[in-house]
């Protein structure tokens, strides 16, 4: 993998993760993650919009006057959101109903306009597409993780409602992990989203030093001088 893409991957999935580090798009992140599948659905929708908008913005970056770039980016994003919304309405109708207002609200997700402004408007198409994909993936993974956590604690299930997104075969994926006498409602209620999110960020910060050593792309070392050492014999 080329160093630029390695860097983009590291930034999008971990070091500059839109959900965990930039804390962008918190509204859908906290509101829809009551189950892993809801998180996955919104994550995929965001990923598609992010890739589409990044590619388009990158394509037109030479043509857009600097003064009105933000409205133009918003129009581009809104167009892709409409496409995704209509697609979800057509093919995953029940999930579309569950996510409700949060699909059109992807337009206002700062992570998307943030990437358009910070990356796509300054970089070529291929890199922008990859950036959109990896940032969307980073966002989506956090959505699924948080959704999975809240679902597990609140309902004792995992991947419930998988058939809404993936088709009827997927109902075999739904697992009842625990049976509660009384569900832990806090996990499903909004405070649970905030507390869960805080714990995930804490975990991220805890793991960061180790992962940085292993995965962070090292800047290429410039060899300044050759060292010659004489071994003692």
């Amino acid at each position, binding site marked *: 993998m080329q160093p630029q893409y390695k860097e983009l991957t590291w930034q999008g999935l971990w070091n500059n993760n839109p959900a965990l580090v930039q804390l962008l798009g918190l509204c859908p992140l906290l509101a829809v993650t009551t189950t892993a599948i809801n998180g996955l659905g919104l994550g995929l929708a965001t990923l598609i919009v992010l890739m589409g908008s990044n590619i388009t913005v990158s394509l037109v970056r030479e043509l857009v006057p600097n003064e009105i770039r933000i409205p133009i980016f918003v129009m581009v994003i809104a167009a892709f959101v409409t496409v995704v919304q209509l697609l979800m309405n057509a093919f995953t109708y029940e999930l579309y109903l569950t996510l409700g207002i949060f699909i059109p609200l992807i337009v206002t997700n700062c992570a998307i306009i943030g990437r358009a402004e910070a990356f796509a408007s300054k970089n070529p198409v291929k890199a922008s597409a990859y950036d959109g994909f990896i940032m969307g993936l980073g966002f989506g993974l956090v959505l699924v993780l948080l959704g999975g956590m809240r679902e597990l604690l609140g309902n004792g299930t995992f991947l419930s409602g998988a058939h809404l997104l993936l088709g009827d075969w997927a109902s075999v994926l739904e697992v009842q992990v625990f049976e509660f006498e009384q569900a832990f409602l806090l996990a499903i209620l909004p405070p649970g989203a905030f*507390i869960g999110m805080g714990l995930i960020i804490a975990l991220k910060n805890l793991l960061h030093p180790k992962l940085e050593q292993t995965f962070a792309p090292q800047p290429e070392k410039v060899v300044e001088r050759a060292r010659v050492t004489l071994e003692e014999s």
Partner: protein
Amino acid sequence: MQFSLSSSPHNHVRRDTKQVMQMVCLGCIPGIIAQTYFFGLGTLIQILLAVLTAVLTEALIVSLRGKTISAVINDYSAVLTGVLLGICLPPLAPWWLVVIGSFFSIAIVKQLYGGLGFNMFNPAMTGYVMLLISFPMAMTMWLPVQSLALHPYGFSDAISVIFTGYNLAGYDVNQLREIADGTSQATPLDAVRSGLIAGQTYSETLNASIFGGSNWGLGKGWTWVALAYLLGGLWLLWTKVINWQMPVSTLAGVALTALFLNMLLPDASGGVLFHLLSGAVMFGAFFIVTDPVSGSTTNQGRIIFGALIGFWTVIIRTFGGYPDAIAFAVIIMNIAVPLIDYYTQPRTYGHVQK
């Protein structure tokens, strides 16, 4: 005569955090005795479990944070949080409920914010609210006065119900809640609330069996528990562990709001004595509101803080979704404390009031 020189503050009360916390725990004793006398020994087990979990959690988190465990545990603040939480729980609530609540109080509400002195919210009350919104069923399983209960329970019964859900004779909590005529007895607040929802007027709801014919809205047993906490609270006031501003203003806030609402809506809201002596008002006013960490720190601010807690308590009890509201009111006002403190800074000596 020796003339001793010392720098300010010239404070001669040699009481440290540990002693204050211990004295507040001692102040709870009359209330705990009344509670166990009327509602059985379950409360003692709840307190024990809560204290145990609180201390273990505190030790765990403190060691994770790399501090000396003994210094933190010895201040008794975790013990006090455990005692206060245990008092608030239904006597026969399942063991995991109290463990979750106590863990949440210490780990999330207190230690994540930085430990004693840094927590914005009252740990015991936030833990209680978390349990109340998470497990509403288990948190409303209050028992009838034991002398009226169809199946009074003993100590081993209590342990058995808390850990297995059934007492030694095989009755579950719902059966233990039955009184002699086979119905379950609600708390005074629940009785009035469900009566009002069913379309009765306030004075009609006072015919519920829990009031035993009292026209003042004084619930059997519950009134004595409230008075016992009042006694313990007065002892704390007398020994100057707590200052008078917060409890007095809380009680005044409850009384005035209740009086006003009762004159405005005589059929839909409770009387002054009903509000003062049912639920957690007495306990809250002396043991919860007076928390020195999460409460206001200026004298003027303490009065505002307490009065508004009293106000919100009656408002939420009358119009809100839950029968009792001390915990919610305390949390709401905890959020407002920085604002109250900002506007009630006393004039520094030598400076002019702006």
